[in-house]
């Protein structure tokens, strides 16, 4: 299967007054058509910045390097005008907080139609029809009446459904979901995850899911990428990831996550996540907190170990 999206040695550095912040520091991964890839990591790991770099939704003091190959073209060579044709058309994104991503003064229906109208993909009447159809598809009852309501008239879960409808109306090849269920209650989270999966099966959309919740990642994705300190420490198919997790950070995350009815005791990772300003370019970003640290870990970059064709771990332990 060919890749829909290939990210090669992506680096996103922020040039601030207090120094350079290397939020994303050389990551590579590929996403096949119709598949879901999860990027897992804690705050500051660079997971959100990595996808904002794909959408190019970054401030001017950010510098992006590497290659982002989408359907055979490097998006980093695109100018703003060309990127506008990609956003909301071929690649859509949904965010964590649906209230702050919807315009509170515009009716829901208008907002859902916008991608179609903006990209001249439909007439107003067609767009309206499609928006109502989309609202029904994402599970909003009495869509026709809801079309003319404002965001405040919707609950949190319903707003996230509206966001999904808006993201999918132009039938994008790729949907990026940045912590789409984090602000939702757990019963609603389950509903939204179910919805994303159903829509994906029906439409064959590829999905990148950003999450801090390892359990959510293993439940919805085909492929998992674990990030720490701006770099990938391990990537594998979900199957291999569950069967044979290798990187000490991955294991630390697994041992820190409480599992219902498991009665296991938690074995947290000592220390704190790194300060990206102070993190050095050489050495493993996780070395300071790693219980299996060796002298070379702090002075040499970890090698890429191919466990299989679809499982890579970046760690000196497995040389």
């Amino acid at each position: 299967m060919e890749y829909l999206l290939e990210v090669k040695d992506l680096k996103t550095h922020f040039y601030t007054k207090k120094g350079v912040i290397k939020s994303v520091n050389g990551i590579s991964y590929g996403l096949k058509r119709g598949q879901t890839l999860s990027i897992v990591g804690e705050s500051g790991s660079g997971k959100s910045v990595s996808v904002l770099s794909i959408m190019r939704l970054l401030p001017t003091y950010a510098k992006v390097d590497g290659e982002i190959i989408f359907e055979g073209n490097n998006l980093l060579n695109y100018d703003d005008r060309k990127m506008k044709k990609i956003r909301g058309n071929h690649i859509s994104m949904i965010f964590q907080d649906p209230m702050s991503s919807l315009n509170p003064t515009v009716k829901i229906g208008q907002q859902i139609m916008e991608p179609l109208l903006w990209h001249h993909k439909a007439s107003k009447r067609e767009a309206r029809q499609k928006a109502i159809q989309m609202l029904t598809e994402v599970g909003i009852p009495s869509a026709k009446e809801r079309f003319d309501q404002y965001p405040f008239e919707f609950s949190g879960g319903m707003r996230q459904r509206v966001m999904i409808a808006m993201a999918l109306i132009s039938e994008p090849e790729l949907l990026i979901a940045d912590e789409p269920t984090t602000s939702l209650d757990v019963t609603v989270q389950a509903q939204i995850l179910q919805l994303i999966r159903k829509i994906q099966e029906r439409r064959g959309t590829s999905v990148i899911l950003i999450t801090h919740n390892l359990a959510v990642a293993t439940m919805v994705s085909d492929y998992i990428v674990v990030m720490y300190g701006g770099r990938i420490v391990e990537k594998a198919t979900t199957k291999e990831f569950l069967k044979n997790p290798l990187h000490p950070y991955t294991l630390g995350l697994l041992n820190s996550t409480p599992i219902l009815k498991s009665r296991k005791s938690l074995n947290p990772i000592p220390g704190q996540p790194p300060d990206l300003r102070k993190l050095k370019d050489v050495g493993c970003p996780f070395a300071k907190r790693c219980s299996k640290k060796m002298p070379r870990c702090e002075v040499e970059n970890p090698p890429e170990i191919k466990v299989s064709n679809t499982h890579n771990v970046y760690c000196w332990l497995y040389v």
Partner: protein
Amino acid sequence: MAQNILQVENVKKYFKVGKKDLKAVDGVSFTLEKHKSLGIVGESGSGKSTLARLILGLIPPTEGDVYLLGKSIFKASKNEVKQLRREIQMVFQNPYLSLFPHMTIGSNIEEPLRLHNIGTKKTRKSVILNLMEQVGVPPQYYNSFPHELSGGQQQRVAIARALALKPQLIVFDEPVSSLDVSIQAQILNLLLELKRKTDLSYILIAHDLAVVEYVSDLIAVMYLGVFVEFASTEELLNEPLHPYTQTLLKSVPVIGGEIRDITISGEIPSPINPPSGCPFHPRCPYKKEICEMEKPILKELKQQHYVACHLY
């Protein structure tokens, strides 16, 4: 018989919103024995934080009463209240907002001791350093300010401050939900350790059932201002009786698990406009006629296992 540290009696809290009442807590009763930990789970809007504030006596109830060590915290005199306050402390979700930003870590932890005139400046310092050690904050942070610490360290400081008066009960309101997973586990282990080493009782309020399970002896499930189920942790997880608890258990994401079909739809209704009868009936797959008319009361169905549901 074990001594009860806390007794909550049919406590209600209604807030006025326009002409309507927002029934944040609508009749909750329970007792907590000494050296036990109670976890309260519920979705946003279930009233769990309001209940915490009532237990601490931070807001007056519309009805009902809360007894700490046998004394009503709402009917006690000012002096008695001050004494009672020493026995109950709280830790909040956002540690940065609950610490004084202009005060050092040392003086933040010292504040309760100072307010209650305990020790002298000199003797307090050693008490504070002891507390910092107990919660795992290195002593070199004594003169640092909160913003210089990470979220996890700030939460440890907040816990140290709560421990300063050697209270018998601490209420933790979502203490780990703003923290990263690896740090969350550190704090949860700290709670377990405190319980093992001291005779502290605590109430933990959280939306994450797995977190609650890990640190609680008992679990209460809250929905629209009432307890719908209340039992020992083991009992509740292995034999959930209320349809809402059952759904909650199915909804928790599990590593390597499947997305399960959720039998309920919709979301928690607004407490300003609650449904008639059982608060859960609009979402309940087993709804009967009586559920729409009559509010079920919390009954002891099995020993120490309480459920509010017309099914039983």
